[in-house]
């Protein structure tokens, strides 16, 4: 096509097979300097695999890679890095036992006379993060920060490496609009410096906002390469999903029941003055059967921590919960589950799945835990349940005996969701359930939430995508600085702007006594 600058990276005829799965089949891919190239495809289409094959994480079965006119064959990510390819992989791959600054500079620490200069490193790390509008204590251990911060740190690390090619595999999956904007600003600047950017995301608006060119993969095969400007959104979706446009109409959203129809009778669960020192300030929140309550707030505002209290993942040290009007001490996940509460964590890799176990085992895990080890689910029953949810959520590969760790990121998320759905909870807490999920599946999940709530299930819904929260929730609790600042009934008057206003001018001051706890958080310049 445009033959003006020669491609910096050309991949031809790439194939990659895992035992039982053909992840890539004769895929071609080109990347030009000074462009943002979006790699699109459904969950499991092979996007991450293509990236890993390129950077030497996996060996290539067949095909050639040419970087700057020279054929390359990397055997380790370090080689790719040295050749000028810098990568942010899909799951956050940092060392959470080290400080933020170290994570950014590992392997490239500023040194004098062979001695690492810690103060220089910390200063530069802070400066670098400020470029992404992140003001945090960089000497703190990375694990004390939320996933979103970790994602930003990974990005900071990648962009600081002086690279000719920058690969970002779903960097925005846990980021809020603000952070995304910052990231895009940085990406544009790099682009203007002639860096070639490869960008993977499931957010279509982001694709159209930033990318110049799109390559679509489906089932490990190349569908085609298109200039973004010439590819309408719906057509892109149909290319990814491989269905006709007409079929997509089904994914259109359904009308939501009005709140008056939901908030009747006794709430299923009520939080009264619940709080946890150093984590969340006292708050009240109630959920009725069939009600979807969204939590909105900026990154690190305490949505996750609030949700964890409902499940007993962390124990509340103030206030009380009423379930069906009766006080209940939620001491741990077991008590919560006995009250039919389910919690789908945002951090699927460390808090959700057991990578070594199979899809089937991961799905039945919570149900089995609730029954106790002496009453195993019969194999027949397991297969029934698992098959049903593999079909409903379109988990791929549709093999219940596949190891979960080998699934693509989005499919892992679906497995986690399935685990909680089969427990048939009365309250389902979904923390970023659509993180890393493709458009088709996302619509399915949203539809599912609506169906479930219609069926009488209460849902506590957290998402970095405000639109999603708005679309699904009957009521939205707005958080700021780990304090519930206001509660909005989601009627026609409420839109993204109003919520942003609520966040910005939120009623409460920052809770000073909270911010410096041991599980301290980042700050976001508002």
């Amino acid at each position: 096509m445009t033959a003006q600058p020669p491609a910096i990276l050309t991949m031809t005829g790439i194939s990659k097979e895992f035992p039982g799965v053909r992840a890539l089949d004769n895929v071609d891919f080109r990347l030009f300097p000074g462009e943002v190239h979006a790699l699109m495809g459904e969950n499991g289409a092979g996007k991450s695999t293509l990236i890993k094959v390129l950077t030497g994480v996996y060996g290539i079965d067949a095909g050639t890679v040419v970087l700057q006119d020279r054929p390359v064959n990397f055997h380790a990510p370090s080689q790719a890095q040295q050749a000028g390819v810098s990568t942010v992989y899909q799951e956050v791959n940092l060392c959470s036992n080290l400080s933020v600054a170290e994570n950014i500079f590992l392997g490239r620490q500023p040194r004098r006379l062979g001695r690492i200069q810690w103060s220089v490193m910390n200063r530069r790390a802070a400066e670098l993060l400020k470029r992404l509008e992140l003001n945090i204590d960089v000497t703190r251990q990375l694990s004390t920060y939320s996933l979103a911060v970790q994602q930003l740190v990974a990005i900071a690390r990648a962009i600081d490496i002086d690279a000719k090619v920058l690969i970002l595999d779903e960097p925005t999956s846990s980021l809020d609009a603000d952070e995304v904007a910052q990231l895009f600003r940085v990406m544009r600047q790099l682009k203007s410096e002639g860096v070639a950017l490869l960008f993977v995301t499931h957010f279509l608006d982001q694709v159209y906002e930033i990318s110049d060119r799109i390559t679509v993969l489906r089932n490990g095969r190349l569908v085609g390469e298109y200039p973004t400007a010439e590819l309408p959104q719906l057509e892109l979706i149909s290319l990814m999903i491989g269905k006709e446009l007409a079929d997509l109409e089904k994914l259109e959203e359904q009308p939501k029941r009005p709140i008056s129809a939901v908030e009747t009778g006794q709430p299923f669960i009520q939080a009264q003055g619940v709080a946890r020192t150093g984590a969340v300030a006292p708050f009240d929140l109630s959920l009725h059967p069939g009600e979807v309550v969204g939590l909105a707030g900026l990154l690190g505002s305490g949505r996750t921590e609030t949700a964890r209290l409902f499940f007993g993942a962390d124990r509340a040290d103030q206030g009380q919960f009423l379930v069906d009007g009766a006080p209940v001490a939620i001491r741990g996940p077991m008590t919560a589950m006995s009250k039919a509460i389910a919690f789908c964590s945002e951090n699927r890799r460390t808090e959700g799945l057991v990578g070594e176990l199979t899809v089937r085992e991961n799905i039945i895990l919570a149900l089995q835990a609730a029954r106790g080890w002496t009453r195993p689910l019969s194999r027949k029953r397991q297969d029934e349940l698992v098959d049903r949810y593999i079909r409903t959520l379109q988990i791929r590969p549709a093999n219940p005996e596949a190891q979960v760790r080998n699934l693509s990121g989005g499919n892992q998320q679906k497995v986690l969701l399935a685990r909680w759905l089969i427990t048939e909870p009365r309250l389902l807490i979904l923390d970023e359930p659509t993180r890393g999920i493709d458009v088709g599946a996302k619509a399915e999940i949203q539809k599912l939430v609506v169906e479930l709530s219609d069926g009488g299930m209460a849902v506590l819904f957290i998402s970095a995508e405000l639109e999603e929260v708005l679309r699904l929730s009957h009521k939205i609790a707005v958080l700021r600085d780990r304090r519930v600042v206001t509660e909005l009934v989601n009627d026609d008057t409420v839109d993204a702007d109003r919520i942003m206003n609520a966040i910005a001018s939120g009623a409460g001051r920052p809770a000073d006594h909270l911010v410096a706890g041991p599980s301290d958080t980042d700050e976001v310049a508002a």
Partner: protein
Amino acid sequence: MSTAELTASRRTWRDWVPTKQLPVLVTLALFGLMYGVGVLQYRGFSDTQVFLNIFIDNGFLLVVAVGMTFVILTGGIDLSVGSVVALSTMVSSSLLTEKGWSPYLVMAVVLAIGSVLGFLMGCMIHYFDIQPFIVTLAGMFLARGLCYIISTDSIPINDKTWVAIADYKFRMGNYRLSVSAVVALVVLAIAVWILSYTKFGRNVYAVGGSEQSALLMGLPVSRTKIAVYTISGFCSALGGMLLTFYTLSGYGRGAIGLELDAIAAVVIGGTLLTGGSGYVLGTMVGVCVLGIIQTLITFQGNLSSWWTKIFIGVLLFAFIMLQRVIRLGRKT
């Protein structure tokens, strides 16, 4: 607002106690407590030389434990250290006494043998993806077997240089430190420096934190992993040499079970066996704790053999419990 201001304004008293170093500090405090008990309980315990003797008597253990710290920080383990220590005592003594080699050449050979063994184990662990426990267990059998091949008897060392080194004392007023104690402290200092001020040292922590992440971050994982086992092999060989300064002999059945002492010292010093967290200075405190337990028992002087073991167990238990209680107490 600058970051510095931001963070400064948010500091509370908690921040003044360094969270990361806490396990080491707690261990140190408990060591002080035990020392105090010894001073109150036994005559002559307060003599500073008793304290220095801990280093003189355990110099070799300290060196071995320092090597072990590197390995454990990467999430591995090295069971071969005890046997490699024994092997180096055998190699030194047989080369010196039976072959009459020059002592400096012997030192070089011994250190080389240890490092090569460590290097080979590291390669097996990394390239063939075999669990460290098993590879080093095989290494343990191998080194011990080599000892017996050299001789099943103990071999004395009469070499002049060796004896001179063994007898040399650094004096500070009334107090003495042996060469091996000083060597051990130097090794410790070097290890502290490597682990906190070199790229390699930080890579050790990164690999221990998450090997996969380290790999994806483009760190030289293979080099790091192989290097830590080489270091451990080197330290074991050096430890074996220090042991020969202590005993002036080589014995194939020496240092049996030393690997457990070394691991215990590392872990008591606050390092996590899962890797990625800990300090080599903690290891020193761990060695001191083991040393003081031994000293207490010697001063006690009338424990029967089995009560000695039970007493060691009870002290270990008390120690670890206190460590836990103090740390938990801070968390909430």
